[in-house]
């Protein structure tokens, strides 16, 4: 699916603090798992993208830590942690 208009700019308004490593990872071998395709639809930040060969890729920058992908795809597909203390999104309004 193509990039959603204006979403990157919207995420750019949030304060993010860098983490040492991505806190969510697609488990090796699961890139084409049908459960992973759900993330493309449900992620409010649009961070999951399905490529032409059917693999789903995750860009962790801009993650709002909402937890939707963990619920939709499950932990067999995703290795899911919160970012380390003090890292990740820091809402100023919430």
């Amino acid at each position, binding site marked *: *699916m193509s990039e*959603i*208009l*204006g*979403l990157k700019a*919207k*995420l750019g*308004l*949030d304060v993010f*603090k860098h983490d040492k490593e991505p806190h969510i990872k697609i488990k090796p071998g699961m890139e084409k798992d049908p459960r992973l395709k*759900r993330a*493309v*639809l*449900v*992620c*409010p*930040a*649009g961070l999951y993208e399905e490529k032409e060969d059917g693999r789903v890729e995750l860009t962790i920058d801009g993650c*709002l*830590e*909402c*937890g*939707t992908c*963990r*619920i*939709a795809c*499950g*932990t067999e597909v995703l290795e899911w942690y*919160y*970012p*380390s*203390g*003090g890292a*990740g*999104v*820091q*809402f*100023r*309004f*919430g």
Partner: protein
Amino acid sequence: MEEKFDAIIVGAGLAGLGAAYTLAQEGLEVLLLERGDYPGSKNVTGGRLYLNPIRDLFPDLWKKAPFERHITQEGVSVMAGARSLNISYRGEELEQEPYQSYSILRAKFDRWLSKQAERKGAMLVSRSRVDDLIIENGRVEGVYAGGDELRSQVVIACDGVLSMMAEKAGLRKPGSAKEFGVGYKEIIELDSALINDRFGLEGDEGAARLFMGEVTKGKFGGGFLYTNKESISLGIVVGIQDLMEGAPAVQAPVLLDEFKQRPEVARLIKGGETVEYSAHVIPEGGLKSLTKLSGDGILVAGDAAGFSMNIGVTVRGMEYAMASGYYAAQAVIQAKAREDFSAASLAAYESMLGESFVMKDFKNFSEAPEALDNHRIYTYYPELAGNIMRDMYNVPAGSKERLYPTVKKYLGLGELWPMFKDMRKVMKI
């Protein structure tokens, strides 16, 4: 002797803060661990807080609380594709103190509340992610956080809707998509005088609106709008199951974009500037989806326990969070007085909750999730209402049909029977 806290609270959201404040007030030694830069930095609300159910649990708290606006105007918009039916409610009871509900922003509110808890003596450590529980002989003895081993008589898991602490303690499973919604919203800055003009408000009066129908393309959920002092919270809540199943396949962010472009909404936010975008999962499974509330050495409160409820006209979670935090604290205070922190002693939490508005609400509304899980509510009825209104207000070039037949043609026996069945379900709410 190594230090041992009376209680370690995982997560400084409203459940954790409610617990910390209550425990510290009674002089117990409390450690509150928060993974964000400050309390509220990872939290999202729609949002409003209803005060009546929790006013007396925290009597000294409200006078100086950093609320946004007290809500004096309630609204529902039933959205069809090209038209909408709007109901607006004002009542003098909403305009009189003590006010029933306030719009809030969590980064501001939680941070303030954490200061009050600290003032009572709670120890807050921010930027600290809890990685695991210390479990010995089947009992929770503390937590591991950032390489430190921290011990306590009891751990209160207030770590939010995904509650990995409750998972680790064996009190819950990850849960299925049907039991959760996702809420996401923009904070749109707008001059306060402009907000007052647009919504017909004065001073710190506020408006709340829910939107159902076309907004979610037939999926379980709706849109919401709350006025803050100098901004508008505008967002969508949608069932994760419906969203991931497609039919139609829509990416979540697109729903919000289209919602913003609806003329009914666009004119309310016109000239405003979006300053933040946030999202969070919401527990929506009701009574059946609550986790086990207590185990050996551990209690679960707030979203972590599943304490959030959508009954269509109101969507509530924060009062349940603060109240469950309060009762968890009371159970710990009693356990400390008895010098008995056993599982049986801590289970007093469940009986106190059982007698409170929290569990009574969840029992009263146990049928709500099923009754609202009906696609006709989000597609058929909004279109029907819109069409009836259109025909009633229509003045054609020729003669106008009588009103009764105008309405009647939409309500033949073929329509009324399924409506009757839907009504029977809705009447269970």
